[in-house]
């Protein structure tokens, strides 16, 4: 766990380095003297690496958050829900294939767009989750911090993916966080300790973990294709 944290911290510091572009406007970066200059360009490879690191970190943190929540609030018999995967996550605009073969056949464009959509679809629910978790009486600080952190990282990830899209696909894209409808109802009046709300939040965390895994997988596949197309494609 310590190693994980070290890696997280390192990656977090690492992630501050690139200047993310957003809103189709090059970000202004500050050089050593403090004056605003245009961001130094970064190679596509490095950018992709960093994006993948982001995704990996987010995935790991999501898994930790899920575990924390599960240990704290979910009754033991219900822990199996996690592995059963019978839960439904909020609807996505389009289905994402699950088999490796199908995934391998997804195009780069599709991969990137999928990632972007995933990221964007989770921004709002995470904020909602933060609000909900704050209402718990004894939510561990680690859980709250992780959730907060993930929200922030998701924004960075979005920016990175946008840049990637522009670089790899030569498309300009507008970043918007409100493309998707709010599928989640704002918090109910119920007290957070009720099992229903607990399960709901638990489900949310599990879904997020799954989607984070998707992001990571897609991005890694993308990277694999960038470096060596042949080995990444199976027929």
């Amino acid at each position: 766990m310590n190693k994980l944290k070290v890696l997280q911290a390192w990656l977090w510091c690492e992630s501050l380095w690139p200047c993310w572009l957003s809103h189709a406007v090059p970000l202004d970066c500050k050089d050593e003297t403090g004056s605003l200059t245009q961001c130094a360009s970064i190679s596509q490879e490095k950018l992709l690496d960093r994006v993948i690191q982001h995704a990996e970190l987010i995935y790991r943190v999501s898994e930790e958050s899920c575990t924390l929540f599960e240990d704290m609030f979910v009754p033991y018999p219900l822990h199996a829900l996690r592995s059963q995967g019978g839960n439904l996550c909020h609807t996505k605009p389009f289905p994402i294939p699950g088999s490796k073969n199908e995934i391998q056949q997804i195009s780069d464009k599709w991969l990137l767009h999928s990632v972007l959509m995933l990221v964007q679809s989770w921004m709002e629910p995470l904020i909602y989750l933060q609000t909900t978790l704050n209402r718990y009486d004894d939510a561990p600080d680690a859980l709250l911090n992780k959730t907060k952190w993930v929200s922030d990282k998701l924004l960075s990830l979005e920016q990175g993916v946008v840049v990637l899209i522009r670089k790899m696909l030569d498309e300009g894209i507008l970043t918007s966080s409100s493309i998707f409808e709010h599928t989640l109802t704002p918090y109910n009046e119920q007290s957070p300790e009720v099992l229903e709300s607990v399960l709901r939040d638990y489900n949310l965390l599990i879904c997020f973990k799954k989607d984070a895994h998707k992001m990571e997988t897609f991005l890694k596949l993308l990277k694999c294709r960038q470096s060596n197309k042949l080995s990444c494609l199976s027929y």
Partner: protein
Amino acid sequence: MAYSLSLGLLYLGLLCGNGLVSARSELFTPDPSRGPHFTGCRSREQETFRCWWSAGIFQNLTEPGALRVFYQTKNALLSEWQECPDYTHTVKNECYFNKTFTHIWTSYCIQLRSVRENITYDETCFTVENIVHPDPPIGLNWTLLNVSRSGLHFDILVRWAPPPSADVQMGWMSLVYQVQYRVRNASHWEMLDLESGTQQSIYGLHTDKEYEVRVRCKMSAFDNFGEFSDSILVHVAQIPSKESTFPTMLVLIFGVIGLVILLVLLIFSQQQRLMVIFLPPIPAPKIKGIDPELLKNGKLDQLNSLLSSQDMYKPDFYHEDPWVEFIQLDLDDPPEKNESSDTQHRLGLSRSGSSHVLNFKSDDDSGRASCYDPEIPNPEDLASLLPGHSGRGDNHPLVSRSISSIPDLGVQQTSEVEETPIQTQPAVPSWVNMDFYAQVSDFTPAGGVVLSPGQLNSSPEKKKEEENEKKIQFQLVSDGAYTSENTARQLSTEVPPSPGPEQGYQTFPTQAVEGNLWNGEYLVSTSDSQIPYLLPEAPPAPILPPVSDYTVVQEVDAQHSLLLNPPSLQPAICPHSPNKHLPAMPTMPMGYLTPDLLGNLTP
């Protein structure tokens, strides 16, 4: 709406959980007590997976085809139940889902049905990622990193490769590894932290032990470890350290031997000193600061100088001194000296002290001075003259003695006086019995003085006598003679010319003169009325016939005064007739002073 649906599914999953074959547990042992059930599902590489079941107690269903597996993928839309795509032929009761049918991020539910009876015996749900147990890593090997300086420990670097079935390169599976090691055939495995790379260092292994190392992996963010790889043996032979320890032992042994030899040599060389340290000799009596050898063999003048520097005073000596000492006359001192201060007294005394003063016991009747009890001098003055008086130098002992002699006048009185300020000599009371002088009866060729024994003073009679004696006039024969101020004071009234002690006493100051110990002055008392009991002048009368007594110089004080050894106490015989000699001395002095005898002097 969607939410309630999801919740309903959650509860369904909860129900399923009762009979759930947990995807996390090890599950290949069928439970014979149960009916047909799934024994487990596993995926090796997240691309395919297999499920196994068992007929359980229902033996009639063991034939193939009696039980069938149906599955359903739970996506957004509920799909229909489909039958197992592939029943493995080689393995009994196994359902194999190939790549086409394996979807990650989707949950599967499988059912075990008996078609004939249309009974669902078992159902379970899972997602493929949660049942993935990766294959063990391959290519495990180790390299030696370093060996500790002592040769007892070493570090190794263990390397491996990810399982070939896992598509790590594509990122399909992110694996983390765990290395374990133990001493061969031990029971406990040491586990190291999860490692996402493909190598790990192991530190602190012992060189003489054989180790087993193995590694396994799992998907990051999941909990299912795969099988362990085959163990490899790690062994580093201990560098023959005998060579390194042998010289050490040798050095140690030789060092110890050398040390012992050194010690022995030291002891033998310093034997004398060690003997002295461990068996200190009984100190021989000696004068502090004076080398006994010198006393034996030294020159007289050296001896004199030595002795003068010493404080030869012996309180005890005075303590039991029964007779009175003499006071040195200082003829030059005018009578006023009576009123002189203590300092003057001291000065006078110091002068007198410079000369050797003989203490002698005068028990001569002729020297009625012994019975003479002069006026009591100032006790303090007297006291100040006492040896050991504070502030006094080395001159004191005899001088004070001489003072003590004075007084026998004061004797009675001073006897009662407490000698407080002074270091008293208990001798004070003995003043009472002290004679002031002793008659020199003879001189030995060697220069020793033969004194006639003095007499003890008696008491009040002495006073009378002393008063009589006051008239006795003494004449200083040679220079340098002086007397204590006190005595001078006392006598000044009556014996103006030669103030001095009422009694005569003799000082035999022995100055540092070569050879003759008796160079010096001595007092000659000329008493007009009485017979001078003092017969000094230089060469004493050869023999004083029957009464030629002498005394032994007890010691020599700093002022080169000789302290005579008092003979045993005499009963105070107050000589009524000064003329009377003391032919018969109760006691004979022990001897007279010769340089040789100085060696016998006790400190």
